[in-house]
């Protein structure tokens, strides 16, 4: 053993010092930026949401957030999740609700907001809140005028017993829309446009009968 040469190992302390030092510096920079931008980001997101509610429920002038608990709709309190936004006109008449829904798109989960008008029994507006769909292709779901035309009066009327939607909203191939409950797709954004049809179909089938059945929960509340 005595005759063996010992291999000199590099001192690991400088490496350790560099990695820990850079890690701490980077962590600090990230935390400072996050904390610095958070109030503005939250405010911008809230403003964007409010704008979106008025966009998907044309003709309303006031909104109020509700949540679904214990089998009924109640005004939302701070910290409540899964909010539903009720819209009222100038006279305080309850017009409809804006609902958030999400589902898998092409790149990632797409989060949308859509408006349901109780009088028309139809989806009357749609807006993409969050999407990572390919710019120029998948993001046509937000811009394509023919696609957006689908959501001006998308039929979600209820069956005679008012317990389910008569025809669930379904996506169809571009140019083949024949019924008011079908969503005409987009060429070049097939997966993304189909995803929107399916998201609204699933969410409306679940929520529309509940909201219509308990519309008095929204009507009887005084507007602040």
């Amino acid at each position: 053993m005595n005759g063996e040469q010992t291999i000199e190992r590099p001192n690991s302390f400088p490496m350790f010092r560099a990695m820990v030092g850079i890690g701490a510096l980077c962590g600090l920079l990230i935390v400072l930026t996050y904390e610095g931008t958070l109030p503005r980001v939250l405010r911008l997101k809230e403003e964007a949401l409010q704008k979106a509610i008025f966009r998907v429920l044309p003709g309303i002038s006031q909104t109020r957030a509700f949540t679904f608990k214990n089998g009924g709709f109640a005004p939302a309190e701070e910290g409540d999740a899964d909010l539903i936004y009720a819209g009222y006109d100038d006279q305080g008449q309850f017009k409809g609700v804006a609902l958030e829904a999400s589902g898998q798109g092409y790149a990632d989960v797409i989060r949308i907001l859509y408006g349901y008008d109780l009088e028309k029994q139809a989806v009357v507006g749609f807006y993409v809140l969050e999407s990572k769909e390919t710019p120029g292709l998948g993001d046509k779901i937000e811009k394509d005028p023919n696609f957006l035309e689908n959501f001006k009066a998308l039929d979600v009327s209820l069956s005679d017993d008012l317990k389910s939607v008569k025809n669930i909203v379904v996506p169809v191939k571009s140019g083949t829309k024949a019924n008011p409950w079908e969503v005409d797709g987009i060429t070049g954004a097939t997966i993304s446009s189909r995803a929107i049809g399916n998201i609204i179909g699933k969410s409306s089938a679940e929520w529309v009968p509940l909201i219509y059945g308990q519309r008095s929960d929204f009507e009887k509340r005084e507007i602040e």
Partner: protein
Amino acid sequence: MKNKGKNIPTSTDEFIKGLWKENPVFVQVLGMCPVLAVSNTALNALAMGMATAFVLLMSNILVSLLRNFIPKEVRIASYILIIATFVTITDYAIQAISVELHKSLGAFISLIVVNCLILSRAEAFASKNKLGRSIMDALGMGTGFLFALFCLGAVREVLGSGSFFGVSLFPLDFQEWVVMILPAGGFFTLAAWLLIFNLTKRKEAGA
């Protein structure tokens, strides 16, 4: 990297090098993922180019300042950590500037981490040079990358969508070349620009 010879390059040389002589896209053919993916409209190309240039500048500054502190065994890990930090900061900053802009670029911002242009500048230049030269190098390379991305984005948007920065350019009956906004269009446009760039450089060399 090219050997720069015995003449000491000035700051302007460093800048021009990135913009033209060693343009990261047209000469070094680096960072092809964002070049092909985010160049389908002029606005996306511009925003992505600016975000990349900012990350490149900030990481070059930090790498250059810390060059004597980082042992060579852990240099790549350190550079990646620094680059990822500035990408995260850019992401937050874009969110704070505009929700709409973040919505259209969100998917691609995180990809800046793996842009080999930024790592290559940190490794080949900033880690061996003083702060001033590293800043000029980053500004040159960043502007060169932005210029190249914009060249591709402008052509693809005009032909593929019939518009420029969202403003319609042609009569209503114009048939858009949809292929230009598809991935194949990115390759076609890049090939065309490489051809033009190389012909120009060859002419310059011959003159």
